[in-house]
């Protein structure tokens, strides 16, 4: 936490200038971007662990169908077997929580909030109060999602994609209030909060990055992380509102009896559905994926930014092709708005439509490959310093590559017909978000920890964490490709009822055991994060890694308004000085 001393050398009309703030203003309702960043981080880590735990329970059912979960099973059901109803709820909430309450708040809310103002040399976000609000709106959204487990019918159970008509007929509830206090309705309400929060956050990030740049920091001198965060903010800003609209309409369908997404002549459990009909379920899919495809780039771009920073520092070389990298990210961001229907090839769209979306999908893979290539070429011939963050950052590259390349067969209808809605898809995107994004975020935690706390995390524990994780995580996700190609569908409660599922069942045991090992592998990480705060090795200077970007000009931890002496930028972020040494942006060459 920022132990701000408040001894500003310069006078200014700060509303609470000079004197100590009470605890609740300093750490709870704080407007300091660093405190808010940490609040986001801690909350997001909690949700990540929660979402992960749901999956750990589900993995028992998948590995050993219909056997009681040992020790804790009785907490959930009478016989200790995870019921199909709970399985569906856990699955839907796992996806939702990981994406919207875990990874995005950590990548954007925490890293973006903490680092963007520092990296552009600002004293805070452009709108500090809005920043505080965005955190608290996110917090409320999270609480609403958690409370949805307490409703009579339990939490949402129609997948993180919430496709109607299923999501509308699932656990409908009686009357208006009864309908509102159901898992799916609470899910929709929660989403409205989360969308509002990310709207506030993204406006703030963009304005801060553009308007509050210090002297000398032209756009082409922005660190890659700033570029990544700004592109991400634009995606959040423009892609989320259609889902907000769709969420409101689905909520109307559930509690207001409308038929936006409900077709005519629908029969549910032998009875005609009691609404006007005439709606269009496919409309939801369009609106959902119009958000959710850009959303996958929201998940990956901040990770790309973090990895770029860490690679630049630890190769002690300028990033190869910085400009190409920047343009690739922008192009990626733009293209991500016109590929969404590649998730919907199976909805019976015409050939013209599917040709268009196949073409755009192939095009969008080009900038992804360019980004990876610039990083690989940066590693080429470098004398790499393998710190723990660097281990995670290098592991990110092949993992993201596997995730990206396995997307190509999904983007072509001929192969997608076979692979759609199988475990293959699950393997594909988990390679991108788990050993991809999550590894990058872990790298980021190890890398910026000395800036945030003034102390290093333990190297030994970090290496244990890394090696166990990298092995276990591949054990979880690699078999998914084979299972998917064997034809096993996703979202199955018990695949052994099918012959082809039974044949692939041993893979499920491997995945589950790997998942539990992966969980154990996180213990040294959590322990390390907690104890290093007080007992970690002290960072001897403000810039212990020899990094080049502005946040390393501030003291560790940075004081309340970040920079006590004026800073200025003299060069691009990853540039040699005349004697071929990487020189910080903020240091004038002698």
């Amino acid at each position, binding site marked *: 936490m920022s132990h701000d001393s408040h001894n500003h050398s310069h006078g200014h009309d700060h509303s609470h200038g000079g004197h100590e703030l009470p605890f609740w203003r300093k750490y709870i309702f704080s407007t300091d971007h660093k405190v808010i960043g940490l609040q986001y981080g801690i909350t997001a880590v909690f949700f990540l662990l929660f979402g992960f735990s749901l999956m750990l329970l589900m993995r028992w059912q998948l590995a050993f169908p219909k056997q009681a979960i040992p020790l804790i099973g009785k907490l959930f059901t009478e016989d200790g077997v995870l019921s199909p109803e709970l399985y569906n709820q856990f699955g839907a909430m796992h996806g939702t929580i990981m994406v919207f309450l875990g990874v995005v708040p950590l990548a954007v809310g925490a890293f973006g909030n903490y680092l963007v103002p520092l990296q552009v040399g600002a*004293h805070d976000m452009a709108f*500090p109060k809005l920043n505080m609000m965005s955190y608290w709106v996110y917090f409320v959204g999270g609480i609403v999602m958690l409370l949805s487990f307490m409703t009579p019918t339990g939490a949402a159970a129609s997948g993180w994609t919430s496709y109607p008509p299923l999501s509308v007929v699932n656990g409908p509830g009686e009357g208006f209030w009864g309908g509102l206090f159901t898992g799916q309705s609470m899910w929709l309400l929660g989403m409205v909060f989360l969308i509002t929060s990310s*709207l506030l956050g993204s406006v703030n990030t963009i*304005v801060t990055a553009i*308007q*509050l740049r210090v002297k000398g920091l032209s756009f082409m001198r922005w660190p890659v992380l700033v570029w990544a965060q700004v592109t991400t903010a634009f995606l959040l800003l423009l892609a989320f*509102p259609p889902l907000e609209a769709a969420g409101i309409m689905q909520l109307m369908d559930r509690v*207001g009896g*409308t038929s936006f997404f409900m077709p005519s002549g629908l029969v549910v459990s032998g009875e005609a559905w009691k609404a006007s009909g005439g709606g*269009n379920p496919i409309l939801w899919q369009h609106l959902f994926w119009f958000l959710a495809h850009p959303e996958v780039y929201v998940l990956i771009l901040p990770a790309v930014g973090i990895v770029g920073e860490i690679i630049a520092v630890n190769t002690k070389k300028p990033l190869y092709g910085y400009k190409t990298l920047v343009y690739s990210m922008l192009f990626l961001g733009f293209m991500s708005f016109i590929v969404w229907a590649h998730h919907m090839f199976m909805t019976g769209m015409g050939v013209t439509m599917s040709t268009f979306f196949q073409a755009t999908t192939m095009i969008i893979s080009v900038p992804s490959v360019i980004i990876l290539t610039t990083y690989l070429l940066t590693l080429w011939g470098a004398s790499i310093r393998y710190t723990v963050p660097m281990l995670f950052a290098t592991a990110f590259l092949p993992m993201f590559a596997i995730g990206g390349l396995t997307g190509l067969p999904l983007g072509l209808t001929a192969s997608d017909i076979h692979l759609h809605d199988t475990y293959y898809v699950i393997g594909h995107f988990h390679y991108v978000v788990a050993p991809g994004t999550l590894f990058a975020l872990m790298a980021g935690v190890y890398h910026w920890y000395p800036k945030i706390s003034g102390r290093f995390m333990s190297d030994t524990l970090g290496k244990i964490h890394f090696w166990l994780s990298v092995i276990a995580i591949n054990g979880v996700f690699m078999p998914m490709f084979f299972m998917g190609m064997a034809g096993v569908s996703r979202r199955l409660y018990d695949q052994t009822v099918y012959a082809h599922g039974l044949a692939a069942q041993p893979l499920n045991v491997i995945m589950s055991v790997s998942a539990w090992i992966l969980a154990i592998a996180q213990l040294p990480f959590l322990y390390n994060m907690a104890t290093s705060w007080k007992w970690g090795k002290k960072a001897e200077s403000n810039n212990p890694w020899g990094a080049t970007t502005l946040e390393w000009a501030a003291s560790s931890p940075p004081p309340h308004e970040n920079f006590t002496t004026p800073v200025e930028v003299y060069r691009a972020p990853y540039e040699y000085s005349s004697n071929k040494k990487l020189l910080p942006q903020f240091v004038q060459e002698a």
Partner: protein
Amino acid sequence: MSALIPYIDEPHPVTGVTNAKLGMWLFLASEVMLFGALFSTLIIMRTSATDWPAHGSDVLNVPLATLNTVFLITSSVTIVLSWAALKMKDLKKFKFNMGLTILLSFGFLVIKYIEYTSKFHHGHFPSTSTFYAVYFTLTGLHGLHVIGGIITNLYLIGPGSKMWEKEPERFTGRIECAGLYWHFVDLVWIFLFPALYLL
């Protein structure tokens, strides 16, 4: 807020706008996407509907909606006048014009209320058909935006106007942003009116 944050009341030399104005434009961009999705819904619902009124005017009250259109357009003019008054350092005239803006927006809501209740009286609810679902949802969300505008404007004419004494530039900027938002709300209605009532 801290004076350490630059470009609160003067425009940034490169972008040419203040922080708040840039923020407002970004916010409006996201609003365009929100209403864009809703209008797309309208189009898709209508083209795939089995029963949809041939003309909106068959079931909706066009004269009332026309009056509402006049209200909103006038209020867009008065909010600009209120901003212009500040530019001429005339707080009284600002309050007068802003007051008119707020009155007109209340007028809009009253008429909307009359329209809604008469629909309910005739047994037309959002659940009646996809037409009414779209009608109520779109005008309802627009109405919420009007309410949001009224709350903001009430704040700016009331307690918020204290800022005029100490930071006149910044206050003028705020009114400009409020105006931008209000024009947007107006613009949405200008699309909604023909799309629902006339076509």
